[in-house]
């Protein structure tokens, strides 16, 4: 059973990678794209807690870094690992949440990740501000919309009556 879960998780990860690298481009709106990999990390954090989420955050952050500018190698790894760990503290085993709360956490998570990532790169303050306003905010809004839909289908459709 555990083996099956691992296979399903790996498959979900692969789907997210494909979504992020292909589908995200196709469904971009005025250049804004959703971050399916961040949604995956947050989902893992809600579902399985700190350790798996931190591990997945590390893997995904590292994958993103590999394809990014080589000078920034490690920035995404650190940011995504921390995000996974922090959101993992709100694991659903200990805390049942409403969809709205999950969306709020996803929003804050996105802002936290992006600000940390940008601050770990060697960009100037002005560049970070400009990137945050022009790229992070539209992408974040799109990510939160997509994440909300995904969370609804994954967490709330089956357990609609059991929320506290």
């Amino acid at each position, binding site marked *: 059973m555990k083996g099956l879960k691992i296979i399903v998780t790996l498959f979900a990860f692969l789907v997210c990678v494909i979504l992020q*690298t292909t589908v995200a481009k196709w469904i971009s709106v005025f250049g804004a794209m959703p971050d399916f990999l961040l949604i995956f990390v947050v989902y893992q954090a809600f579902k399985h807690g*700190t350790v798996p989420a931190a591990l997945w955050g590390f893997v995904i952050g590292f*994958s993103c870094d590999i394809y990014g500018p080589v000078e920034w*190698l490690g920035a995404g790894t*650190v940011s995504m*690992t*921390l995000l996974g760990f922090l959101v993992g503290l709100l694991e659903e085993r*200990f805390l049942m949440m409403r969809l709205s709360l999950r969306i709020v956490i996803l929003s804050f998570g996105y802002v936290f990740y992006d600000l940390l990532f940008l601050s*770990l790169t060697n960009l100037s303050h002005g560049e970070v501000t400009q990137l945050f306003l022009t790229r992070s905010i539209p992408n974040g809004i799109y990510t939160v919309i997509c994440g909300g839909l995904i969370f609804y289908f994954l967490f709330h459709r089956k357990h609609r009556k059991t929320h506290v």
Partner: protein
Amino acid sequence: MLKLGGLIRRFCAFGRGILVLAFLLFLGVGMLMLPVPTKERLSSFFLSSVFYPVQYLVASVDDYRNVIEENEKLKEQNARLRLELDYARDGMRELTRLRALVRFDNQWDYPIVTARIIGRNPGRMVTTLILNRGISDGLKKDMPVFSMSGLVGKISKVAAHHAQAQVIADPNLKFSVLNIRTRTIGFAETMDGKMLTATIPTYAGIQVGDTLVTSGLGGIFPKGIGVGTVSEIQPLDMEVLSLMVIRPFQEVSQLEEVFVMQKEPDWIVRELLQ
């Protein structure tokens, strides 16, 4: 006790999580601190080994989508080229017709005006054609209208820039025809808007397949414009007269352009018409 146990378990899990986090952060920060050449080596190593299958898979998905997009573009291009080809073919047909016209034009003593058909009468029978030429092009009432195949009719009304042609399929139009082989003359008319009929003496020896042309009598049509072929001969009462059914050379409903001969009716006809 149960609550206490849960708390301890959670604390242990948290502690283990902290350890894992510390280790992962150590790796992450370590990567950040690496010199750029080392980062490059590390990056290229992972790209060419661990990430290669993922990259391959992603590229395949992207390729698949590109193939679909390319296919759509090619279909669109194909449709456009087909249209252009049809247009070119139509142009070629028009060119052939016009070349033939140049040769045809020299057969007559009268100038010929080419006209496009821009309208037809909406009834079941095509009795009238609207032409895009009028008085400004030298057209006048009762000028003969014909096509490459044969007689079409005559101008019945004329305006400044367009004209109406009464076609041979109109039951109101009657004209004389000449059998080329027997030189017999008859008056052709139509009853059904398709086939022409003419009454001729039985002794004239008309046969099925004989060619008929305009006789030049009547003063409107010049002599020699092809009309049609005899398709049937029906004996009439007393067997003195026969009715010949004529299949016209030109099917009026298939016309696109016609020629108007700038020949005015003979003076006698003009006087009669007045």
